[in-house]
């Protein structure tokens, strides 16, 4: 029996994401969803792509969702959400409802790409949130265009002739921003106040909005389940993941959300995860990654 009262004067908000789901212990995505829903509130509808989040939270009749929720297929969260936006608008029920599309990086960067572009171009009032754990986790850790250079996955494993993922991470949020939409932002679960502010901003602006949320995965990244939140901050503090936001379409208006006073060397991030373990005896590859990150951060002025 848990006592249900708070010493703080915060308004006690009903939990919109129930316990009992089958996410791994320490799952970054599950925590991300809790944070996003807490910021959005109960006047929310979610269209969810196939993936860990969908599968682990809706094994019928068990559902963790305490907001209206629909899952149709893998590549079309944005298209399903477009239909919901259309129906709500036409039936004059749109006012005040936060309409989200949730997807993993698979359902966003790769198979979900077309539907997202279409939704953004049509300027539908949808807030697309990608919970990015940098691989197709639900099917067992296969590479995605979101997988960072040098990471080992089951379809780009490290080996005697392979450094793991060969390609740089697709700049998804920048591609989205180029569409010219209401609001594009990157965020991560470990900087919760920043994430909350960005979710609330998206809800104010209605859409189209896009939130790229980095969500570490203990199972796929091979780190201790306790480190999920800390690792998401380390990604930002090393410059591996940059927190920024943009309202409107003028790329010159991109605002950096967090500039680390002194960027930590990327090796601290890499050595904390089993998916980069094969790089530990490869100082050449470590230097390559550091250089890539230095260039990436230079573009943002740090």
């Amino acid at each position, binding site marked *: 029996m848990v006592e249900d009262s708070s010493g703080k004067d915060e308004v006690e908000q009903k939990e919109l994401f129930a316990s009992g789901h089958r996410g791994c212990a320490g799952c970054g995505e599950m925590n991300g969803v809790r944070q996003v829903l807490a910021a959005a509130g109960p006047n929310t509808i979610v269209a969810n792509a196939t993936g860990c989040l969908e599968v682990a939270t809706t094994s019928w009749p068990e559902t963790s969702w305490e907001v209206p929720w629909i899952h149709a297929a893998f590549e079309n969260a944005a298209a399903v959400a477009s239909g919901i936006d259309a129906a709500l608008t036409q039936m004059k029920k749109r006012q005040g409802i936060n309409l989200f599309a949730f997807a993993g990086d698979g359902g966003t960067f790769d198979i979900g790409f077309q539907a997202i572009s279409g939704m953004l171009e049509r300027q539908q009032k949808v807030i697309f949130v990608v919970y990015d754990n940098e691989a197709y986790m639900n099917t067992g850790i296969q590479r995605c265009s979101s997988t960072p250079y040098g990471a080992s996955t089951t379809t780009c494993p490290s080996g005697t002739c392979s450094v793991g993922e060969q390609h740089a991470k697709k700049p998804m949020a920048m591609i989205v921003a180029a569409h010219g939409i209401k609001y594009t932002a990157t965020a991560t679960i470990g900087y919760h106040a920043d994430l909350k502010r960005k979710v609330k901003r998206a809800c104010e602006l209605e859409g189209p909005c896009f939130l790229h949320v980095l969500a570490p995965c203990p199972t796929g990244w091979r780190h201790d389940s306790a480190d999920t939140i*800390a690792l998401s901050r380390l990604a930002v503090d090393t410059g591996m993941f940059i927190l920024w936001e943009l309202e409107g379409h003028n790329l010159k208006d991109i605002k950096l959300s967090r500039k680390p006073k002194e960027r930590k060397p990327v090796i601290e991030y890499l050595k904390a995860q089993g998916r980069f373990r094969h790089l530990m005896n490869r100082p050449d590859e470590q230097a390559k990654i550091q250089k890539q990150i230095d260039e990436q951060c230079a573009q943002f002025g740090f």
Partner: protein
Amino acid sequence: MTKITLGLVARTPGASKRNKTGGWRTLRPVIDETKCKKCWLCVIYCPDSAMKKGKKSSMPDYDYCKGCGICAKECPSKCITMVEEAR
């Protein structure tokens, strides 16, 4: 077993609560009430909605806590200890 609904729509929000994931854990978080500053970071960061705001301190919901250890790691007051689950 539950009777199926039309289109297998799950009409009871939060029905996952019947699945007590507390049985998963090998470690359990223990709160030192005297040190807890009620910052509620552990409540924010729990992936399982398994840390609740109590009158004196945060309170783990042991029915669902999977023992991931995020709360203990993130607590700025270092008042959460992960102890081995009793047999």
